């Protein structure tokens, strides 16, 4: 079930990494609330067009901006053009992320860079690029998609976990720095969620993982989207600098 937050209607919200997985569910959930969803895309114009159509079919407006979260120049250009012509963005979901699971002793410097650049530096740059715009917007809410492994660590995910833990320090700093402007910044730490990433696991591994989850199952991306909508809405108006796990009790 998806809760409805009336203040999300027409709210302009940028969701990075909305092409698939949790990001796509978030974009769809926001569209269903009537929000104006802005998403970034890297190359494929036709895919961006079909995502726009898919979102608008659900409700609300949707706009695709062509930029990569690791490319500051194209990002600022696209964001500036959008905010000048449409208006201030008052919601941000830093969701774009990559992972490359490998043992520490095989982890190469360029793999570390790629993970940190997208997951951590990318989120920081998008937030920075929007900071001026945020001063002109009202009821700004930022949601950073971290991960349960950012809190508990995980073998073969050292770089990924580090990037996700980094988001927490970043979010808390943003929360303090801009609280006087009624801007809120929070972190979501999903546990095992059914996505392409987890579909790739074999059945036995999935069964093993499920056993370690008190609620006995993987979460759905819709459940994460629900929490994201709540954090973007004024329904959570007194909540900032917080880190919320959504993991079926995996890490208690």
């Amino acid at each position, binding site marked *: 079930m998806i809760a409805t937050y009336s203040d999300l209607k027409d709210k302009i919200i940028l969701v990075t990494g909305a092409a698939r997985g949790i990001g796509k569910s978030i974009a769809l959930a926001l569209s269903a609330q009537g929000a104006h969803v802005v998403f970034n895309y890297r190359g494929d114009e036709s895919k961006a067009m079909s995502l726009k159509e898919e979102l608008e079919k659900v409700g609300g407006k949707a706009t695709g901006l062509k930029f990569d979260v690791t490319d500051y120049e194209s990002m600022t250009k696209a964001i500036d053009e959008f905010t000048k012509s449409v208006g201030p963005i008052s919601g941000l979901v830093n969701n774009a992320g990559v992972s490359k699971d490998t043992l520490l002793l095989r982890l190469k410097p360029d793999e570390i860079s790629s993970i940190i650049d997208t997951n951590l530096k990318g989120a920081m740059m998008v937030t920075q690029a929007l900071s*001026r715009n945020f001063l002109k917007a009202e009821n700004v809410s930022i949601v950073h998609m971290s991960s349960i492994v950012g809190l508990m660590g995980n073998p073969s995910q050292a770089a990924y976990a580090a990037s996700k833990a980094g988001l927490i320090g970043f979010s808390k700093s943003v929360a303090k720095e801009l609280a006087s402007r009624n801007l809120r910044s929070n972190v979501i730490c999903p546990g095992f969620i059914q996505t392409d990433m987890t579909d790739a696991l074999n059945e036995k591994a999935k069964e093993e993982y499920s056993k370690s989850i008190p609620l006995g199952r993987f979460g759905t991306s819709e459940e994460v989207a629900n929490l994201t909508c709540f954090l973007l809405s004024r329904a959570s108006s007194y909540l900032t600098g917080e880190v919320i796990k959504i993991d079926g009790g995996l890490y208690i």
Partner: protein
Amino acid sequence: MELQDKVIKLVSEATKMDAANISLNTSFVDDLNLDSLDMVELMMKMEDEFGVEIPEDETENLKSIGDIVAYLKSKSH
């Protein structure tokens, strides 16, 4: 209205400080107690009002109303 008066009016509105108490010598930090974020917002208001762009690096040099007025004058020629 003189440029100086326009700037004072804008600062007065932004800081809720009586315009009569603001002069060219008024310091943003010492007299108006503005923090760095307040300064950024004030400069954004100046940009909107006077149609100029004030680069971040420049903001550090603008410490008083007089500095702003002088800066805006230098840009209007």
